[in-house]
């Protein structure tokens, strides 16, 4: 079985500051890793994904994440956030290529001016 832990439920930051949203996972098999964003009153949108290859993955809106197998982590980073990045961010894993995902608890990113 797989599980995902997002270590921070809320992350308040000021505009143009860097941010890191932490995600750790547990799995006895290899997994694919994802970060999704949910803007208020909207569905989920894929930010980025790690399937294989380079451990540094770049996504949309200037976000990137680094897969660390030894630490079973997949932290999301952005060097300079905008007000428009205010949203809920979900880390997710799947052990196969199907769309069945196991989600973390979510991290609410709040960007203040």
């Amino acid at each position, binding site marked *: 079985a797989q599980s995902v832990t997002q270590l921070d439920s809320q992350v308040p930051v000021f505009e143009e500051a860097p941010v890191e949203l932490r995600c750790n996972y547990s799995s006895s098999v290899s997994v694919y890793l994802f970060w999704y964003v949910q803007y208020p009153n909207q569905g989920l949108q*894929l930010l980025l994904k790690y*399937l294989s290859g380079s451990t540094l993955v770049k996504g949309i809106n200037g976000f990137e994440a680094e897969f660390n197998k030894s630490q079973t982590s997949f932290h999301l980073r952005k060097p300079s956030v905008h007000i428009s990045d205010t949203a809920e961010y979900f880390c997710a894993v799947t052990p196969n*290529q*199907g769309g069945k*995902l196991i989600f973390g608890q979510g991290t609410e990113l709040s960007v203040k001016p």
Partner: protein
Amino acid sequence: SAVISQKPSRDICQRGTSLTIQCQVDSQVTMMFWYRQQPGQSLTLIATANQGSEATYESGFVIDKFPISRPNLTFSTLTVSNMSPEDSSIYLCSVEDPSGNTEAFFGQGTRLTVV
């Protein structure tokens, strides 16, 4: 990619009644997924719906409470039966990428409030 249309977007329902949520995809997909997002919480998979077979339910979810239909490769419905206030959640439909990429697409969700 896939575009998903989910209806209704929100509803307020009386306890004891049932609500059917529709999910329409613009491409044929093998599997469709239904998730629940309770207030302030993450997404939990309810069931996987394959066309032509019974839906597969996750632990804690049963067919009598959440019957699912999957009449063709582009459409599915989830019914929330005999509702109680604890069923107040956002229900989301999801599909795998019909192009074969490892990615899931989500509908906008149905925000259900049971009073």
